[in-house]
């Protein structure tokens, strides 16, 4: 066993001195997960709003499906994306297996249902209260979708943060489709898994601390944003 207090001290030193290896991994993690959340938000938010507004056959089934997809394990998504983008797969021509692009794709698939399902929940209530007024003013469904997204934007930041939190903390998909290649696809969670299994606790611990800080920081930011700028009442 490594000496845990010593490992912890080394971890702190790595953070405080902005160790280049550590910084590289953190940066890559943020790049991958932020890219994923931007794309997933661009798809999931309008999707959640559309499901709240439009009435179509199979709508209830779509909601149930989305809620179910929220619980999909990351390793399963990883496996699916692996099969899709591996050389023999239908997206094999892209040649993105073991690249950050594949990780972004996988995390996107992981969190788009989360963002869509949670935003649907947020927007359904708002739509109920707005529906008659907006119809009276002559708004068409498409305009109602954008109105809901805009007027609920503070509540929706929390939804997006939840998606980001899930993406940045998942390990299963990142390791399967990224391959945990040093300086290419190694991110915080995959490094923690690898270094812990090698017994190199200090880097793992340092990354663990950063991961917690990122998670807390992002949520604090969301709370601050919605608290400081949301209309009162």
């Amino acid at each position, binding site marked *: 066993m490594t000496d845990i207090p010593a490992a912890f001290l080394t971890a702190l030193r790595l953070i405080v001195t902005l160790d280049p290896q550590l910084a590289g991994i953190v940066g890559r993690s943020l790049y991958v997960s932020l890219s994923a959340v931007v794309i997933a938000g661009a798809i999931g938010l309008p999707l959640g709003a559309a499901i709240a507004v439009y009435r179509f056959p199979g709508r209830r089934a779509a909601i149930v499906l989305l809620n179910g997809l929220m619980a999909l394990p990351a390793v399963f998504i990883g496996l699916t994306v692996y099969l899709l983008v591996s050389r023999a797969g239908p997206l094999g021509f892209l040649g993105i297996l073991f690249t950050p692009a594949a990780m972004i794709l996988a995390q996107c698939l992981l969190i788009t249902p989360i963002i869509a399902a949670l935003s649907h929940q947020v927007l359904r209530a*708002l739509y109920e209260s*707005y529906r008659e007024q907006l119809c*009276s*003013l002559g708004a068409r469904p498409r305009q109602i979708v954008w109105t809901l997204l805009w*007027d609920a934007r503070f509540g929706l930041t929390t939804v997006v943060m939840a998606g980001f939190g899930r993406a940045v903390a998942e390990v299963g998909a990142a390791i399967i489709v990224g391959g945990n290649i040093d300086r290419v696809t190694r991110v915080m969670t995959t490094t923690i898994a690898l270094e812990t299994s090698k017994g190199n606790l200090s880097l793992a611990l340092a990354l663990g601390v950063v991961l917690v800080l990122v998670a807390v920081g992002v949520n604090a930011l969301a709370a601050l944003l919605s608290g400081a700028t949301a*209309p009162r009442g």
Partner: protein
Amino acid sequence: MSILPLMLDGVSLRRDGRVLIDDVSLTIAAGPKTVILGPNGAGKSLLLRLCHGLIGPSAGRVRWSGPEAGSARRRQAMVFQKPVMLRRSVRANIAYGLRLHGHAAAVRAARIDRVLARTGLAALAERPAAVLSGGEQQRLALARAWALEPDVLFLDEPTANLDPGATGAVEAIVAEMHGGGAKIVMTTHDLAQARRLADEVVFLQRGRVAEHAPAADFFAAPASEAAAAFLAGRLFW
């Protein structure tokens, strides 16, 4: 040229096996201010919603049959019994409807300033609408509808939460809009207000039109038993 008259032909509305609006046939013509009277739960709000096209009837037909009926959606507005405030500033609440109706920014600004001033909300223009008092929200709802300059305005108890001064101001605005050529269709509980504003009365009881008469006749000598009881304060629900 107008979208009026509005014809209701055997209109019924059922929900959960209950008949809420029962075989209403009614013609709402251009001109007189129409006041819909009736006790709580008579179906006044539902009738306005049906007229405004927010809900479809279970049976019968609601039809704008004027020469410009094709543009009916854009030429009517409604002030709801419970005002719905968008989560935006007071000004943005008014701008929203104007933008939907395709008005240019300059027109929007001018109309917003005018209706804000006239509803006594100018000082509150930049506040979030959600923080306004109940009466202020009701005035904002009126301002928002007014800014659209509709041909037909439906008002569902527009002064229910207002103090006497604000009630007077709202009645003056309603009269002014009517003077400008808008058709007014409103509900009220307030008999004194009905006497002041109504040119014709539609008396509703348990989802049925019990009486549709010129205001003077209605108040002088109601033809129906129910209306007489209501005017005497003896009809409850």
